[in-house]
C-alpha cells in the first residue's frame, strides 16, 4: 500500500486545492481511504488532518472501510422509486444477507444505494460494477445474484 500511495501522492506536494482529486485517486488506488493514507495526504498537502477528514466525510463518494470485490448499487431515483425500487433493495438485502452500506463477510459484495443511475427509462434498475441490470422484479434480483454466485 505504502508504495502505491506514494506514487499517487508524488505530484501533489503542497497542493492544497487539489484535495478532492487526491482523495479520488487514493481511493481509486486503494479501494478506500484507510487512516494511514489520510494522515499521509495531510502531510503531503500540508493540510491539518481534521480538514482532510472534514472534506472526505462531506462527499458521498469517499469511504473509510474496505469494499467488496463487487459493488451492487441499487438505484433509488424517482423513476425507480415509483416503479418499486424499495422492493428491489429489500430483495437484494435479503439475498446478500447484509443491509445497505455493508459488505458481505467474504468481501465479495458491497451493497449501496445511489440517488440516480440515470437509466430512468429502464427503471427499476441496479448496477453491478459497471453493468446495469434493468427493468427488474424482486424475483429477477435474487436470480441474478444467485446466478452469479454459482457461475
Amino acid at each position, binding site marked *: 500500500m505504502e508504495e502505491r500511495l506514494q506514487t499517487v501522492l508524488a505530484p501533489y506536494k503542497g497542493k492544497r486545492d487539489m484535495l*478532492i482529486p487526491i482523495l479520488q485517486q487514493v481511493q481509486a488506488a486503494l479501494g478506500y481511504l484507510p487512516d494511514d493514507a489520510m494522515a499521509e495526504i495531510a502531510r503531503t498537502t500540508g493540510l491539518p488532518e481534521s480538514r482532510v477528514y472534514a472534506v472526505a466525510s462531506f462527499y458521498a463518494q469517499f469511504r473509510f472501510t474496505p469494499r467488496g470485490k463487487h459493488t451492487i448499487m441499487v438505484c433509488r431515483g424517482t*423513476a425507480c422509486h415509483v416503479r418499486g425500487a424499495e*422492493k428491489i433493495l*429489500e430483495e437484494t438485502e435479503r439475498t446478500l444477507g447484509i443491509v445497505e452500506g455493508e459488505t458481505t463477510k467474504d468481501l465479495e459484495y458491497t451493497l449501496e444505494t445511489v440517488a*440516480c443511475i440515470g437509466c430512468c*427509462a429502464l427503471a427499476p434498475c441496479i448496477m453491478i460494477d459497471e453493468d446495469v441490470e434493468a427493468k427488474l422484479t424482486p424475483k429477477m434480483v435474487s436470480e441474478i445474484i444467485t446466478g452469479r454466485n454459482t457461475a
Partner: protein
Amino acid sequence: MTFAEIQAQANLEWEALNNGGRPQITVGTATCGRSAGAMAVVKAFEEELQAKGIDAALVEVGCIGPCYAEPLVNIKKPGWATVSYRNVTAEMAREIVAAFLLGDDPLAKYALGVFGEGEIAGIPNILSTPAFKPQERRVFRNCGTIDPTNINHYIANDGYIGLNKALGMRQEEVVDVMKRSGLRGRGGGGFPAGRKWEAGLKAKGTQKYVVCNADEGDPGAFMDRAVIEGDPHSVLEGMIIAGYTIGADTGYIYVRAEYPLAIRRLERAIQQAHEFGFLGQNILGTNFSFEIRIFPGAGAFVCGESTALTLSIEGKRGMPRVAPRPRTTEVGLYDKPTLLNNVKTFSSAPMIITRGAEWFASVGTEKSTGTAIFALTGKVQNCGLIEVPMGITLRDIIYDIGGGIADGGQFKAVQTGGPSGGCLPESLLDTPIDYDSLDAAGSIMGSGGMVVMDEKTCMVDVARYFLDFTEIESCGQCVPCRLGTKQLLDILKDICSGRGKPEDMDLLYELSHSVHGGSVCGLGQTAANPVLTTLRYFRDEYEAHINDRCCPAKVCKSLISYVIDKEKCVGCTLCAKSCPVQAISGEKKKIHSIDQALCVQCGVCLEKCPKKFSAIACVSPKVKQEES
C-alpha cells in the same frame, strides 16, 4: 489552418460519410444505450459486416432520446430513406444486415420509423408520429447524429462558427445578442443568461473564471449527461465564447464522477479542440487564450448550488456561502469573478451567436424563449429525453410524446423539478411549460426531471421519498434545513406507518414554511415543495392515511395486507414456496393462507400467483388475521 480551411476539411469528411455511396449504420452508445445492450449490437454489426464482406460505415453516436426504444440503430442505405430500428439485439442486427443491406427488405417489423428523404411502405415517418411531432431539437441538434469523438462531425454541422463569429464581435455585442435571445439559465433557476454574462463582463478584476455546472444530481434527470456524451464540443464552444465575452482565461467543468463516459468524452473533446486551435493560446489567430479543466465532483447534491460548487473546486466542503453574499459573478471561484452556467445554457450559446437572437426567440413564450428539455420517466409509455418548445402543455407532453400512462394505468400526478419541485394533479395538466407558469402552480422547471405517477403511486410516500433525499443531502449549516427536513421526514414516516395524527398536517405546513424561510440556499428554500404540493393537491391521501389508516395506492407497508381469496386459490403452492419468511401455509391442492403476524409485505406472493388464478390481493387498511 484558417477557420475556412478547417471547415472545408470537415465538410469533406462529413460528405464522404453521408453521400459516399456506402451504407451507414449508426448505433446510439451513450450510457442509456449501453445499459440496454448497445455495445453487443455494435459488435454484432462489426462481425457481420466483416463476415459478409460488406463495405459500410459503422458510427457510434450519442443519445437520440427515446430511451424506451434503446438500443436504437439507424441505417442509411443509398437510395433509401433512413430507417430507425428499435430495441435492437445482436440477433436482430444480423437479421437486418442480411435482409436490408444484402437484400432489399427493410424489415418493417423492427422499425420505429423513417426519416430523411423518401418513404418506405409500412414504416411511418418518425417526425410525423405523435411522439416526435411536437419536438424541436435544438440543444439536442447533434445528439444521436454525429460521432461525439470526432470534432470534424461537429464542425461540419455548424460547429465553432459561433466562436469564430464571436471573436470578431466586441464583448458588449455578444452580451447584447445573449440578452436579446431571452435565454434563461437552464439549470433550473431561470435567471436571464445575458444579464449574467453582462455582470461577468462588468465585474472588476484581471483574473476571471467560467464554470460549467454538470453536477447533475437530481434523481430522475440525465439530460446534461446526454448532451455531454452526445455533443461535447457544443458545451466547450459555449464556454469558450463565454470566456471571451467576460474576459476569462480558464474554465472548469464540474461533472459528476458517476458519469465516467461523459468525462472521457470531454477529455477527448478538449484535446481535439486544442489540436484545432479552438482552445489554448491565441485562439483562431486572435490574442484571446483559454483553457478548460475537468473537475470530477465527489457526490454532494448541494454542490449544484453555485457557491457550494466553487468551494468544492477549491478542495473544500461544498457548503453554500452564508448571507449576505455577493453574486458569484463578482466573488466566485478563488474569490474571483466567475460566470457559472448549466451545460444546456452553454450548449445553447453557440447557436444563438451563429443563428441570431431572433431565431432563438422564435420558439417558446415571450418570457421563456427557446426549448425545454425533460427527462420524461415514471409510469408513462414512452420514457426518454425530449426537447420541446417552451409553452407546450404538460398534457401534450404526457399523452402525445409520452404516449399516455403505462400498463393501462390512471394518471394521478406529474412531478417536475426533482426534490425542489412539486407534484401537480390532473386539473393542472393544461399548465404550459415555462418558468413562471410552473412556479405559479407550486412546482418549478428545475433541471428538467419529469416523473409521471399513476394510481399505484402513494403521494404521501412520494413526499417522504423526497424528504429522505433532501434530509441526507442537506449540508447542515442552517439549522432550519438540517433539523427541519429531519422533522418533516419523521412526521411523514409516522403518517406512512400508520402513526399519523390529525394535527400533523398543520405541523407539516408550518415546518415547511420555517425551512423555506430559514435556509440560505436553494436546497433548503425548496426542500419542502414536495410536501407543500402534495398537501395542497392530494390532501385526501394524507387524510386517508391519518384518519382511516389506509393507503389508497397500497404502497405504505404498515397499512397494507396481502390476503388469499379462498374462492380463487387452487393450492398450486407457488406462493408458499416463494415466500421469503414462510408466512404462507397450505398443502398442495388445498387453500392456502397467509399468517399476517409473519408477513413482511414484500409482495412476492402476489407476483408469483399465476395470472389465471389471481388469488392474492393487496388490501388497505390492514386486516387483522385471515380466518382459516
